């Protein structure tokens, strides 16, 4: 798979480390969210067959986190964004 890095251009997926569902960006506040919400965040996944937004880390590159939109049935990559931009668009400071 080739991941089109927004800054570095086309890169081999082997340069990246995979973390999982991009919803992991939205970690609840552990002090206020409650154990059920934190359990759901840490352990449960939508795991769709089809379009999936997921976190990839460019370990052997610029060490940026990317949000890659990929089809889990065909492995086709449909979009790549910097995770930083995704988080900021949701109102996060970084």
């Amino acid at each position, binding site marked *: 798979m080739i991941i089109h890095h927004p800054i570095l251009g086309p890169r081999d997926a082997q340069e990246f480390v*995979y973390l*999982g*569902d991009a919803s992991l960006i939205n970690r609840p506040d552990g002090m206020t969210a409650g154990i059920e919400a934190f359990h759901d965040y840490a352990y*449960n*996944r939508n795991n769709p*067959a089809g379009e999936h937004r997921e976190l990839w880390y460019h370990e052997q590159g610029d060490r940026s986190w990317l949000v890659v939109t990929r089809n889990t049935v065909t492995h086709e990559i449909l979009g790549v964004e910097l995770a930083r931009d995704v988080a900021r668009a949701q109102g996060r400071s970084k």
Partner: protein
Amino acid sequence: MRYSGFRVIAEALTGHKGWKPVWRDPEPQATYDYIIIGGGGHGLATAYYLAKEFGQARIAVLEKGYLGGGNVGRNTTIIRSNYLLDGNEPFYEFSLKLWEGLEQDFNYNAMVSQRGIINLIHTDAQRDAFTRRANAMILHGADAEMLSREDVRKLYPWLNFDNARFPIKGAIAQKRGGTVRHDAVAWGYARGADMRGVDLIQNCEVTGMRIVGGRIQGVETSRGYIGAKKVGVAVAGSSSKVMAHAGMRLPIESHVLQAFVSEGLKPLIDGVMTFGAGHFYVSQSDKGGLVFGGDIDGYNSYAQRGNLPVIEDVAEGGMALMPAIGRVRLLRSWGGIMDMSMDGSPIIDKTPVEGLYFNGGWCYGGFKATPASGWCFAHLLAKDESHTTAKAYRFDRFLKGLMIDEKGQGATPNLH
């Protein structure tokens, strides 16, 4: 029709005209007491033991494609019970004991071959860890022994003992481990279940679940609505898709695991061998092909096929361990979809929906578990309580901090 040596001879003398189809192809009835979703190894074993051991009737197995067309026909056929943790080892040892009596039990030749398995040791720390594991296995009634470097050399003198990075310093062995012909496991259970009146319904995809007042009423399928008192789901690989019909999110990601077979060779490896340092494992089929595999590709996938980087990685692992295979040609590679759970261990449990039960999260250890998984799931379905060896495989273990994490990796499914 019972199979026996006498039967084979009698048929040979009469032109093989007496053989009949091994199971019926029934139309689905309007309702059943039990519906098992998934006609793979675990689903068929569940139906078989429900009928045989727990005396239940009016059972149907619903299969989207054909019987045994999923992971039970895609694995590397290894059986073993060499686990460390209390939540796992009694279950897998129960499974290995069922494997030992399986062919007599269901009167079908599954080619159960207890040819032994060894896991190689490369460091002193690894020897300590494996010694601890061997003690845990023995304490749970399994067999285990530690092999020295010279013991391993007697078994396989052509291994690369002096690899600069991972020299072979010994092994942990389980002689009762081995291989089984995986397709015959599905067929044997299917035949045994059919003979006891279970309806095996193929080309029947579950497209929805009818749930009223928190209780399951039945399932919508591509062949119409079918009612049921209890529904058991055994569709590892597609668990998240099927359980979404009941509105559940699971502690599971689906990942692709590849497996490989080489061209046929003369006898080279008479047991099963694992090279944990490179995550490469290998056995030799009775036809002579080396059957081997390695890590999952590592990203969510429902594709049943992987990518080339992992093929290269597995081949490198094989070459590091066995330089002698350098000229051997790869015959085939294929992929299967694994339910990778959040602690690397399975789930056999009730769900919040009354009458709906779940069996999944097998990661890449599902094949060896087939008999015990079927037995324990049948136990849960029939008696509404967990079998003693499967008590730890609960949904709420993540909430309560009771994870069964053999590798100690935490909630990172692609590292288990």
